[in-house]
């Protein structure tokens, strides 16, 4: 819809995440690293979930309408489960890393687990937002708006607000999840999982194949980036 809509929707979707990043993450390099690793973990979780979806789709084979819909629902379910599994995996990694960080920097205060929860949630949120919205955003640059086939014309605004919500929700889920893991309150994890499922079940199509493809294209360079950054710090 032209540059005005492009910038408007981009600011709506990524404005708060940008604000959080500028004021809380940028000041400390270690937080940036943990943010990027968090984003990377989200990418890998999406890769695995889409591979599972892809193999299921190939095994099932024929493409009739109800099967497509059930396949999609199954895909979303698997994606949410795998994302939460990777969040748990990241928590375990951070627990082990905090021991090592204490040895490296005995004089500096190690970042607290709550801070790491917030940073990891923000990482998950930013990457999730970027992946779900960038495709739509690039189409908003063209001269046309949604509607010629009868779809609602507020498509771009809706998607932008949805992305904003998901980003912030990932931050909150990160904090709640890590808190539940620390205090061994496992029902907290269930709450996070259920609320994530609820939000994802809202009508928003996830194009897993395209995302897988674009995912791997990002994966290789961004995968090496945090690992090399960590090595640099060693």
């Amino acid at each position, binding site marked *: 819809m032209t540059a005005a809509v492009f910038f408007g929707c981009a600011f709506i979707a990524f*404005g708060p995440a*940008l604000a959080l990043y500028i004021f809380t993450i940028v000041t400390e390099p270690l937080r940036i690293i943990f943010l990027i690793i968090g984003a990377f973990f989200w990418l890998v979780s999406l890769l695995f979930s889409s591979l599972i979806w892809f193999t299921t789709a190939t095994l099932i084979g024929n493409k009739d309408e109800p099967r497509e819909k059930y396949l999609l629902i199954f895909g979303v379910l698997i994606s949410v489960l795998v994302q939460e599994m990777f969040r748990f995996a990241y928590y375990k990694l951070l627990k082990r890393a905090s021991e090592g960080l204490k040895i490296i920097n005995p004089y500096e205060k190690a970042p607290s687990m709550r801070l790491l929860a917030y940073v990891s949630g923000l990482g998950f949120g930013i990457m999730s937002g970027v992946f779900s919205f960038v495709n739509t955003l690039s189409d908003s640059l063209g001269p046309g708006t949604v509607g010629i086939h009868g779809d609602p014309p507020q498509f771009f605004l809706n998607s932008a607000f949805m992305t904003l919500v998901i980003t912030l929700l990932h931050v909150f889920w990160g904090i709640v999840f890590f808190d539940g893991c620390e205090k061994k309150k496992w029902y907290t994890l269930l709450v996070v999982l259920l609320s994530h499922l609820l939000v994802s079940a809202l009508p928003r199509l996830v194009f897993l194949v395209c995302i897988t493809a674009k995912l791997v294209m990002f994966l290789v360079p961004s995968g090496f980036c945090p690992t090399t950054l960590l090595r640099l710090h*060693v």
Partner: protein
Amino acid sequence: MATAGGGSVADPGSRSLLRLLSFCVLLAGLCEGNSVERKIYIPLNKTAPCVRLLNATHQIGCQSSISGDTGVIHVVEKKEDLQWVLTDGPNPPYVVLLEGTLFTRDVMEKLKGRSGRIAGLAVSLAKPSPASGFSPSVQCPNDGFGIYSDSYGSQFAHCKAFQWNKVGDGLAYEDFSFPIFLLEDENETNVIKQCYRDHNLSPNGSAPAFPLCAMQLFSHMHAVVSTVTCMRRNLIQSSFTISPEVVCDPLSDFNVWSMLKPINTSRTLEPDDRVVVAATRLDSRSFFWNVAPGAESAVASFITQLAAAEALQKAPDVATLPRNVMFVFFQGETFDYIGSSRMVYDMEKGSFPVQLENIDSFVELGQVALRNSLELWMHTDPMSQKNETVLNQVEALLSTLEQSSAAVPTVVLRRLNQSQPLPPSSLQRFLRARNVSGVVLADHSDSFHNLYYQSIYDTAESINVTYPAGQSPEEDLNFVTDTAKALAGVATVLARTLYQLAGGASFRDTIQADPHTVTRLLYGFLVRANNSWFQSILRPDLRSYLGDGPLQHYIAVSSPTNATYVVQYALANLTGKVLDLTREQCQNPSQVPTENKDLYEYTWVQGPLNANETDRLPRCVRSTARLARALSPAFELEQWGSTEYSTWTESRWKDIRARIFLIASKELEFITLIVGFGILVFSLIVTYCINAKADVLFITPREPGSVSY
């Protein structure tokens, strides 16, 4: 250490990773038609653009801006609808969807005058064709490149006596600053009109509400001003850069020619060898690029000549005729005689086996399909007949023609009773070089009978080539229409005349053109190229050149075009001989002692389907049908501003497409931007405030024993 650690990725792992990466890149590429784009745009696939052509001094055609021209669609079905576009409409610029019948000069003048409010034009094909005629060509075609100029035959120059193309409005030779597209598919036109009715109509002429239905046309042309400028830029590009960006290409292709008796093409003929030339044109054009059905302007004429060539070849005493006959089909005659000027140039320089002094007489077929009451008119040049010898030769030529047509009841030859100029024809280029005795046979005595000269409506229907409903394509292929019979009559007259001019006498009245050949050629060129006969006469690798619709006869810039190939192979099939050679022998005939590559051309063609319809029976065809380069001598001599030779070039372009979509109002877009800014600023402020007071807001518990994390 970091670099060593970073670089030591396991090699087989990285290779498989690379393969996975490339697979995913491919997948991502396939996903580019993503569904958000499909929600927004409807691409228009069956369109033809108007492109830019340049000659020595001018540019003609249309141009869009580099990122396409977008405008609100407005359907103009009657003249009054134009007022909305030109003055009343509140949301300029507009893309006008014009009915085919309104695509006239005065409507276009009005649109050109207000080009600030017009973003583009989409013309829908008028069905049926406009009854009063439609020709975007000029009224005096190829003026200035024939024989009549201000210094020679000035009373005939610039069509002073009468205009050849009375219906012509010259639109195709105007320069437009907005893109113009032809909508060929009626379904797409209906989709656009439906979108217009749903979104762009408003009651009582008030402003319609957003979102509005809009169209975007991409046809950005790289060349500007004239051929001189664009060829100079080409030269600079190719001299100084490694990967040159060529901006225009000369219009060029190949002439098709063959000899009745084979001649040695490696050297020129002796001056005593006399040749009778039978000529016609192969090409046509229209306002839009690569749409050139050219039924009456070119196709009927060259089909007649093909049938005459076949009939003449069957005469028993062909090998003993004192004079030879050359059949030549000139390409590019629409654009200031590209093919014939090149052939004359080659003949003068000696690069062509036949020379100008070998030419005994010249018979050309003009437009022959729309004869009134069987009359075929013989046009001759009055200026060259001022010479006594030429006058006598022309007189002999005309009387030979009249004798040949005496026994053909379906053709009545008529002489013109006052001195008239020659119609636009290749003979004019030959007369510029030498006073040959020549005649042009045409169905019109003064102005063209063709109401659709060089336009999109010059199709099979305009020459009454229609087939009864309910027949299969094979039945249509072999159905002999009345037009086919009429053209076969003309071909018989032509073949007999050529036989007599070549010195034959005994078998003249047995020469007969076959209406079945004519009808199959008409079907293949005008209705459906992909038929069994065309498939059987082509080389195996040219199979895909035959589409499901008619062939287009625009000269284009890449050669040879589909139509040129088909004409060459049809000529080879009709006048050649099938030999019993293997494929290797056919492709290397010098290895076979009885065959001579200088005399003949050998081609390995697909052949017909076998009895089970599973395979083809390929064979070797030997004929004298060849291609001769048809590139204007102006480009050989690098005289890009030449007024003597054709200098037509076609611009290059990157992207030509059209699509429709809805556009939102500027206010809504602005509001979206403001909301975005607002959210950004608000979140920056809130985050700053919370961050500054973080130690107050997020109190960590100080109880001993609890894990302070």
